[in-house]
């Protein structure tokens, strides 16, 4: 009884026990209010698919078939203090590991709480800064932003070559945040290195109310490939504006916005043909993806989007780590994560086909994938070994 100051063990409450019981809780702190709600919801849906799969297959065998339970926490869309509180609650309520929090800024705070409490977090975020903090409990299966920008270029160039297209001039535009500027700049530089010409990319402030100046700038550059990133709302304004002016130049998109289901709804048929760089796709020929994507579609009525897939893999990785550690102690799960090398099963279903973690928490095997919207769904077009259809530049 009494207050917290009277308790003997101050932090990491409820996780010190040796027995894991019949259910093991994984916390999913994600934005469930504010403008990012959908991304958070998608991510949580992915974790739930994974939990259902694991439980259907008999739970965590090393722990007597203990079942996985997903506990959600609302980080809000823009308030790190709320993210901190929500994460604290998840940990206190017994989460042995966390999957979250989609937006880099939120992941930053969520992972700090996790680090403090010595609970591992697997993230769906890409920002380079996350892994630069040398946290012990931070794990990032998808690639880093800077990797994605450069890789995208080589992908596109190679994919284009495979259908006989070369680019002589590219133009880049995106929001002025750190991740997007890094990606677009890296991609533009890579194109230059590959022989195409390009003006310096231009950056706008997210939340545009009118795309005309952007379009004017893009139109003036006469490029034969446009590199675009941004939120679904901004990107759709830009793309629609371009199309309205009869500018049909192929568009390569970066970032989560380009592959969420809602983007297709906003864009209507104009979505088809857009090329996007991402970290995961529902049609990847990797272990377990097909079944998971089908289950997802059945349950939620949409194709399984990227953040759902990443989160789905994350839960499987936590399960793998528990199997390996034969423990549900957060510190031991973290230790196991640092030592695993998953090459089979859904835990390996990140592009690259293999997941292990460097000391900084990054996955050395991670590669991005190139997708293209066809029939209002993103289809993987590159790397060739994952491609389910051929890239198409509409020429």
């Amino acid at each position: 009884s009494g207050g917290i100051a009277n308790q003997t063990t101050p932090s990491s409450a409820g996780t010190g026990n040796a027995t894991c019981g019949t259910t093991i809780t994984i916390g999913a702190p994600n934005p469930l209010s504010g403008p990012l709600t959908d991304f958070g919801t998608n991510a949580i849906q992915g974790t739930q698919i994974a939990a259902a799969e694991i439980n259907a297959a008999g739970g965590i065998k090393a722990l007597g078939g203990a079942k996985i339970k997903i506990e959600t926490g609302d980080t809000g869309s823009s308030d790190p203090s709320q993210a901190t509180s929500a994460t604290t609650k998840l940990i206190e309520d017994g989460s042995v590991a966390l999957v979250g929090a989609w937006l880099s800024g939120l992941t930053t705070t969520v992972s700090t709480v996790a680090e403090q409490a010595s609970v591992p977090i697997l993230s769906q975020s890409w920002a380079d800064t996350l892994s630069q903090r040398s946290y012990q409990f931070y794990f990032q299966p998808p690639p880093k932003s800077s990797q994605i920008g450069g890789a995208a270029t080589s992908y596109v160039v190679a994919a284009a070559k495979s259908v006989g297209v070369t680019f002589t001039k590219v133009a880049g535009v995106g929001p002025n945040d750190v991740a997007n500027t890094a990606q677009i700049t890296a991609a533009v530089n890579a194109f230059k290195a590959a022989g195409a010409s390009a003006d310096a990319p231009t950056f706008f402030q997210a939340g545009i109310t009118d795309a005309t100046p952007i379009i004017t700038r893009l139109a003036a550059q006469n490029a034969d490939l446009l590199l675009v990133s941004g939120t679904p709302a901004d990107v759709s304004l830009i793309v629609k504006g371009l199309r309205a002016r009869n500018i049909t130049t192929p568009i390569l998109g970066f970032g989560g916005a380009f592959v969420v289901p809602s983007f297709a709804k906003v864009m209507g048929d104009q979505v088809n043909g857009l090329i996007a760089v991402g970290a995961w796709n529902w049609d990847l020929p990797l272990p377990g993806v097909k079944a998971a994507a089908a289950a997802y579609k059945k349950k939620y009525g949409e194709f399984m989007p990227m953040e759902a897939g990443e989160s789905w893999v994350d839960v499987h990785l936590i399960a793998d780590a528990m199997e390996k550690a034969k423990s549900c102690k957060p510190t031991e799960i973290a230790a196991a994560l640092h030592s695993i090398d998953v090459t089979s099963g859904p835990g390996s279903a990140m592009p690259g086909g293999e997941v292990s973690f460097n000391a900084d928490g990054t996955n050395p095997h991670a590669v991005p994938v190139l997708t293209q919207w066809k029939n209002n769904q993103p289809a993987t077009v590159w790397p060739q070994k994952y491609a389910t259809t051929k890239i198409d530049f509409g020429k």
Partner: protein
Amino acid sequence: MNRLVGVGRTVLPGLGVGVVAASLPYWLITQQYVLSVVMVAMIYAIAAQGWNIIGGYGGLLSFGHSVFFGIGAYTTALLTVRLGITPWIGMFIGAAVAAVVGAILTFPALRLRGVYFTLATFVLSLLVTDLAVHFREFTGGDQGLSLPFTRNNPLMFQFDSSLTLYFVLVAFLAGATLVVAFVARSRLGLFLRATRDDPDAALASGVNVTRTRLFGLMISAAITSIAGSLMLEYLRFIDPATGLGANTAFIIGLVALVGGRGTVLGPVIGAAVLIPAQQILSSTFAAAPAGLSGMAYAAIVVAIMIVDWRGLHHLISRLIGSVRRSLRHRPTGDLS
């Protein structure tokens, strides 16, 4: 004797806040989660105490105090990250910087009345946020700045348990409350209220309105900036949205207004109600359809204002007053 009473009145609120808050973990706060919510509430209470000086006593309703909050956080963060300077010093350098910026704000504060000032500060917060995002090399852009994470290093404001951090925050909150109580009873406080009620009459009475607003804004900015530094230390991270954004500005203003502006304890009460309401609602409704928690929160805010526009402080003292009156045996009627 009178003097002693005066000193007592000044010191008491700060002391009370300190003692009550410091005792909470021994009986009321039984969960880490609640502790973390209360810590956030205390940080906003400090920020709102800063706001209170110029917004409550000075009558300049700022919706841009996030700028000072952010200056504190960013200065401390930059000093720590770039130069390795301890936050214990950094936060006071931040407060000094904020005070200088506050001093610059005096210029518009002299010319802009009422809503003009409110909206100007609101836009100022947007401007500063945009600039922080734009100059990403210096500020870390939208990703902000993260502090290095080291366990138990009190010198760098890192404590072995959050309970220690909690007590540190209690001390800061008590200090801020003390400052506000002191200002409220001081010459400056009187002049701030005079300039709030009628600047021209204040001038004619010999009050130097410029200097009054200058000092008011500087103290106000410095306190809010300290709150920003504390937020940085609590999160170990700061970004433009949290540090500088309109949302933070709103929270600071709302906390003070809902609690009761121009009262020593109002901001503390406001933070004690609003911040937990928001955070606990959102975790309660985390599994419910999106939006419910927001609606509930909004309803609470609106309801408080409709019941008593002066805020919770006034509402509570009214309730206490009526309870007292009903207890006390009163002679008859009114005296007129």
